Each structure stands twice: as structure tokens, then as C-alpha cells.
């Protein structure tokens, strides 16, 4: 495949920069700064140092033997992004972007958050690097993730409730962009997913590709060969693009994205952007999108706040349409079942997002032979979800929306 994105920020036909003129200069400045610093050894060294000493990378690639035996097919390896500082892959990107912000001379950072993981990761690096931090979060999500709201406040960040639209991640993104427009001079926007206008999908991928770079090296060390499948959950798609990207050129490795089917792809309550969406422009880029016939963006639903998003990063749209990656939907119920299975067989409580990837693995592994290998991105740990899960499994009335 060709080098993507091209100089216009296009992954094939996808991507681009569909933003108001008021933001264009900030995006061009960011692109210029990123092109400069990404080639600067000192910058790279600082990012690597923090990933290693502060976040604890490399994360392990763990052979989940009991899970593999239980499923009775392929060997399942888990890329343990849950072992990162703050408990998810999100910090890979926030460290990179916060160091970039500092180099660019910005003193304030802003971020959007859905489940709160990216918000916590942003608040964390802001504290670490001495930057002021505001996190925009949908009012609905704030209710669902109270612990993460408090965590961000403890870290010294201001959590700004978003009351527009659906009051979830999509509107938190809108509000962060709106705020950024009026504060571009001193404020850096740390976008948390592989979405948005160019150069964000590229920057986020580049900072997250460490997941795949490490996993590729580790599996070759362990097994002497590349895996047959790489499986990852997809909301906006940052952990998935991070683990997929270093394998894109390896034609024997099949890339499997797992999206949230919510209450089912045949209901109106899902976040299955690839299965049920169509091409459209949303939050700055052309990609797949859940929309109605008139081009109005439709609200998404998932038990997992991190997958509850009607769009998806443009590079995933490119991988799907070129046939390089395949995307499958997993329902709330299937994700909950997978979460319990992993907890009981391996002693690992995964985040609800990552549980979707485990659920797809539960379907895939038994169809494969014992000498085939699946690498799964375990993007985050489940601590943040425990209270909600208790509600679901305890049979209490606990609506995720």
C-alpha cells in the first residue's frame, strides 16, 4: 500500500481537513511543528524516555494460555496496554502530543473525553509537564464515569460539562473544537482518537503505533513468526490503528477491527459505523459515519462509553475499503460475557472497550487450529467500568444512556 496520508492528509479518498477557516491556520501550524519535531532526535528521546520510565513501556505481550485452552483453537496473545500508567493505551498519545505542545510553546492543553480515559491521560501529562488542562466531557458521560471525573479533578484539570446535542463524546469533540477556535493562540488541542482533521489521524497513529511495533517484535521473539490475526476494538480507532499499522505491510497477517453493536445492528441503538454507516464528512474528515438520509449525524449507543461514537478514523475507512482490514460488530451482551470470561480464566478484568475485542476472539479462535496465533489489543483495564458492570450484571436498572 502507498504511504498514507498524502500531503493533503488523505488516506486514499478518506481524511482531509473539513474545518472552518478559523481553524485552518492552527492545523497548518500543528502539521508544520509535527513534521519538524517528529524528525528531531531530542524530541523523540524525550517521548521515549517518558513512555519507558513514566508509563512503564514496553507493555508485555502475554500468552493467555487458559483462555486459549478454554476457546480450544488458536493461541491467543494479549498486548497488555492495560498495564500502562493510567490503565489504557491513551497515554501513548497524550505523552507524545503534550511534549509536542510544550515544544510549540503552548501553555494550555484541552482535550475531549468519552469514557474519561483520554481525559485522565491528558490531565496526567498536563500535571507531569506543568500545563493547564481543560477536559470537555458530555454531561451524560460525566454521570456514567463519575470516578474518572473526580480523577481528572484530583490531577488538577478542569472538567467542562458539555450540554449540547447528545451530551456524549461526539458533542464533547464539537465543543472542544469550538473552544479551540477561540483560544488557538496559547492552547494545544490533544485529540484522543485517530479521528478529526489532518494532521490528527496521522499524529495519533504515529504515537500509538508503538503498540504494534512492540507486539510485532515480541511475537517474533516468542513464536519465531508473525501472527495470523491481529484483533482490536474500534471506536474512533486509536488503539486499533496503533496495533494494525506496523502489520499493514505483512500480507499474511489479517487485521480485524471490532466495533460496538450495542443492542444489535438491527436496532437503532448501536455504534456499528462500519457495518451500518456510509461515507460522510464528520468532525473534520471524510470517513464512515452513522447518518440519516439527509446527512444528519445519528446518535450512537454502546455499553462502552469509549466506543459510543458515530464516526471512525479515516485510515480505518481506507483499510476497510481496500480490503486490508475487516470490521465486525459485537453486542453489549457479548462484550459483557467476554469480560467475565477473561476475568475468570486469566484474572484480568478488561475495559468494556477491550472486552469487545475479546468477544470477537471468542468467536474466531475456536475456528482456527492450535498452531495459529491471534494477537489481541487489550487496550485498557476494567477498573473504571466495575461500577457500571455491577449494575448490568446485578440485574439492577442501570441504563448506560
Amino acid at each position, binding site marked *: 500500500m502507498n504511504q498514507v496520508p498524502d500531503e*493533503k492528509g488523505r488516506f486514499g479518498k478518506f481524511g*482531509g*481537513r*473539513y*474545518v*472552518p*477557516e*478559523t481553524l*485552518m*491556520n*492552527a492545523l497548518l501550524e500543528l502539521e508544520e511543528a509535527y513534521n519538524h519535531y517528529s524528525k528531531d532526535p531530542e524530541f523523540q528521546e524525550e517521548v521515549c524516555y517518558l513512555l519507558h520510565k513514566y508509563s512503564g513501556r514496553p507493555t508485555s505481550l502475554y500468552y493467555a494460555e487458559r483462555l486459549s485452552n478454554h476457546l480450544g483453537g488458536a493461541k491467543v496473545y494479549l498486548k497488555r496496554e492495560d498495564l500502562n500508567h493510567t490503565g489504557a493505551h491513551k497515554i501513548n498519545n497524550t505523552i507524545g502530543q503534550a511534549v509536542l505542545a510544550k515544544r510549540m510553546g503552548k501553555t494550555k492543553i484541552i482535550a475531549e473525553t468519552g469514557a474519561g480515559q483520554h481525559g485522565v491521560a491528558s490531565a496526567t501529562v498536563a500535571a507531569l509537564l506543568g500545563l493547564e488542562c481543560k477536559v470537555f466531557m458530555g454531561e451524560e458521560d460525566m454521570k456514567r464515569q463519575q470516578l474518572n471525573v473526580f480523577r481528572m479533578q484530583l490531577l488538577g484539570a478542569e472538567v467542562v460539562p458539555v450540554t*449540547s*446535542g447528545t451530551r456524549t463524546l*461526539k*458533542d464533547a469533540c*464539537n465543543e472542544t*473544537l*469550538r473552544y479551540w*477556535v*477561540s*483560544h*488557538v493562540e496559547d492552547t494545544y488541542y490533544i485529540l484522543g482518537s485517530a479521528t478529526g482533521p489532518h494532521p490528527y489521524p496521522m499524529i495519533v497513529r504515529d504515537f500509538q503505533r508503538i503498540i504494534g511495533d512492540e507486539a510485532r517484535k515480541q511475537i517474533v521473539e516468542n513464536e519465531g513468526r508473525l501472527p495470523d490475526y491481529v484483533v482490536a476494538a474500534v471506536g474512533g480507532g486509536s488503539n486499533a490503528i496503533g496495533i494494525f499499522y506496523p502489520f499493514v505491510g505483512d500480507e499474511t497477517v489479517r487485521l480485524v477491527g471490532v466495533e460496538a453493536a450495542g443492542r444489535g445492528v438491527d436496532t437503532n441503538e448501536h455504534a456499528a459505523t462500519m457495518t451500518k454507516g456510509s461515507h*460522510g*464528512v*464528520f*468532525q*473534520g474528515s471524510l470517513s464512515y*459515519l452513522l*447518518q440519516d*438520509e*439527509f*446527512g*444528519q*449525524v445519528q446518535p450512537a449507543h454502546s455499553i462502552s462509553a469509549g466506543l459510543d461514537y458515530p464516526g471512525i478514523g479515516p485510515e480505518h475507512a481506507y483499510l476497510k475499503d481496500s480490503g486490508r482490514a475487516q470490521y465486525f460488530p459485537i453486542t453489549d451482551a457479548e462484550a459483557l460475557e467476554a469480560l467475565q470470561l477473561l476475568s475468570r480464566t486469566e484474572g484480568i478484568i478488561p475495559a468494556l472497550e477491550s472486552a469487545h475485542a475479546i468477544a470477537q476472539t471468542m468467536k474466531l479462535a475456536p475456528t482456527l487450529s492450535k498452531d495459529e496465533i491471534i494477537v489481541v489489543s487489550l487496550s485498557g483495564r476494567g477498573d473504571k467500568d466495575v461500577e457500571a458492570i455491577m449494575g448490568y450484571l446485578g440485574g439492577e436498572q442501570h441504563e448506560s444512556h
Partner: protein
Amino acid sequence: MNLIDQTFAKLKEEGKTALIPFLTTGDPDLETTIAIIQQLEQSGADLIELGVPYSDPLADGPVIQRASERALVNRISIRDCIDTAEKARQAGVKLPFILFTYFNPVLQFGLEAFMELVKTKGISGLIIPDLPMEEDEEVRALAEAAGIHLIPLVAPTSKDRVVQISRKARGFVYCVSSLGVTGVRAEFHSGIDDFLSTVREATDLPIAVGFGISSREQVERFSKSCDGVVVGSAIVRKIEEALPLLADASSREAGLRQIGEFVSELKV
């Protein structure tokens, strides 16, 4: 000759500044939108910006967001908005119409079919706020062929881009008065006057200023340096305030008058 060009030419002869109100089509319903457009014309409007309601209006502040939400309750589509221009014309409105729409509804309609419809329904210009010059090539070519003006936005942060954007502009150049989203504000970007003169130097087209203009004093201030002034959120807020009156047939006229009086005050 495009109606926008005719209007600006005439105003220039008369030494006047164009007053360009914005309203969200279908807020609160399509029939009322037509009545409001007629009222705006009688009250001194020179051009009309017809907003297409959108679920994710990135460039807009809370007032226009709320108007979008009200219109979307009735699932107002981009086609409804274009038809509204035609119906207003049939009802006797003479002003040029500019359709203000985010890009995705246009993309889903189909670019060619959209441009054909816009042309046949008597719309003279387009503003697509999330389509910067890097992305507008196809739309610009189609608009050019249809004789529809694609009106670009320039911002105080556009810097070197002002010249490139102005060169491709048609109709007029829309200057964003301040950084941020649409909405009423007391202060404008500190370099606003320098910015406006930069734009003036870069183009022979009329220049209009918008975002945050809400009072007669502000209109007067910009009339000295601009050929047109766009008033959006302030008018949409007046419409919002008049909603209870507009909802009832007996008080409807009073509601329209209330909106009209505000617009008359703005007219210099």
C-alpha cells in the same frame, strides 16, 4: 448577472452598506420561515442567509445550535431549505438568497444534483463553513458552471491565506470578525481593522463582516470599512424570543413585527 452582484452594485451606487440577516430555515417551521423572510425584507434586509439546520454545527455557538435543534425536530432537510427559497420568491421576496450549509448534507445529496437544484430554485450564493479552500475544488467548479457564487470565509488567523482565498472568491468575501463560534459578543479581534484592510487590498469584490454583530453601534462601526454586515445569532435569538407569539395565529403578526423592529434598528 448574479443577483448578489446586482445588489452590491446598487448599494454601492447609493453609498449604502448591505444588511445581511441569517436565519435557520425551519425554525420553528418552514411556513414561519417564509413569513420571517418577508418581514426581514420589509425591515431593510438586503440579502438573506438561509441556514440549513445541522446536527453538528461546528462553527456555531449555542443560539444557532438551539435553532438547528428546533428545526431538526421536524426533520428539515437541505431540500426543504432550498424549496423555501423558491416559495419565498413566489411569495414576492426579491432579495438574493445565500444558502449557508455544512458540507455533509450537500455531500449526501450529491454535489451535481445539489448544484442543479440550487440553480433552478433561485439561490444565488453558497457558504459552506467547513469547506476550506483545500477541499472546495469540486464544489467550486460546479458552482462556477452553474453561476452560483461560492462565498469563502476569511479569518483574522488566515494571514497569507487571505490573498489565495480572496482570489478564488465569488460574490463577496466573508470576513470573520473574531475568533470563535457565531454568537453575540462585546469585543472583536484586536487586529480587526488591520485584518479588514488586508482583505480589502486583496480583492476587488465587496467585503462583508460577520460573527458576533448584534447592535446598531456595531453595524455602524463596520459600515465604514465594509460593504456588508452579517447579523446571525442576534436575529436567531430574536426569533427564539418571539416563538411563543409566532406559535399562535392571533399573536403571529406581533411576533413578526418584533423581529422586524429589531432589524429596522440595525439598518444604517
